[in-house]
């Protein structure tokens, strides 16, 4: 089998969103859970994570965190070499195109009944160029109230909580 310049095979990334931040450049899907949701693009980039009403958070939906989440890839001969190439084609804030050459093959979110989180807790997307194909799987993981969470808060009494 002659591979030539073509890099064969599939690179799989696995994103576990522990109720953390993300969203977009390509077409987007939405991951949902009872107290929030996130818009995520098919390249796994995100800038929109909303937190809504919960027993600990008596407020309506609002955007949470200001950071963004994005991934890049490096391989010999990539169009951006010697730099890595962003998977997403567009960062939202500040807005700037990355000029990556990926296109979206598929993207979809759904409720996985094996995941106890209620909502569109699972997703799958595939992007590719003429050299690589990247598959990304997403899952919302609820680690339980009071356990480790990226959402940590200082309570008024000085203790740190990790609550939904």
């Amino acid at each position: 089998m002659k591979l030539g310049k073509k890099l064969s095979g599939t690179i799989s990334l696995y994103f576990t969103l522990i109720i953390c931040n993300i969203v977009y450049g390509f077409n987007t899907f939405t991951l949902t859970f009872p107290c929030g949701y996130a818009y995520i693009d098919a390249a796994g980039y995100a800038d929109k994570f909303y937190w809504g009403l919960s027993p600990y958070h008596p407020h309506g939906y609002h955007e949470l965190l200001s950071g963004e989440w994005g991934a890049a890839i490096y391989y010999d001969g990539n169009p951006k070499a010697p730099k890595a190439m962003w998977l997403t084609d567009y960062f939202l804030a500040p807005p700037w195109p990355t000029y990556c050459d990926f296109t979206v093959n598929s993207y979809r979110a759904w409720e996985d009944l094996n995941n106890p989180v209620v909502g569109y807790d699972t997703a799958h997307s595939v992007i590719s160029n003429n050299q690589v194909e990247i598959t990304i799987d997403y899952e919302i993981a609820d680690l339980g109230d009071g356990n480790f969470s990226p959402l940590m808060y200082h309570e008024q009494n000085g203790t740190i909580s990790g609550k939904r």
Partner: protein
Amino acid sequence: MRELLRMGVAGVIVLGLASVCLADSFPPSIDFQTDGIIEDGNTFLNVRVFDDAMVSMTGGNIKGDLELYNTSIFNAEGGAMADTSMGWSSRITLFDNSIINLYELDGGVAYGIPFTHIEVASGANGQIHFYGYGFQFNGDVLSGYWDNGSSFLFSIRSNLETREALEFHEIPEPATFGILTIGFAILQLTRKSYK
């Protein structure tokens, strides 16, 4: 026999691939440089409108994103955006000096969460006009009712450009309109009786 079995397996694999391809196939995208209409029966993934084109959507479905550029105008009078069955979200993004008038549009809601997101790009001067009643906006999520009484829920980008672009045009809800009509009728009758 072995050949037949091999062909059978190949057939199953081909069918399997075909079903995957169908599941992943996207509807076409479209660009408008001149005036146009999106109506019942039209299904697009992404829609972009350029220059000074004016596009009216009276039906159909935009499953992906809507992007408005230059001085284009988009009138949403019906139809839907987003495909919640696929988990697909939609974005409405206004660039440059574009305008969107929203009279009626199903933005898609699942698990009580809006699946369509509206924003003006940073540095742009877009205008977003909502026509309806019962508007409630918490800075991130906008809810309300269209003129026909159906409810809507959209996620709104909380950047300065978007906040400044929002304009709400209150149409009297049916009950209020009814009361006003009755009041006007009573007023007319009273005037006549005085004469």
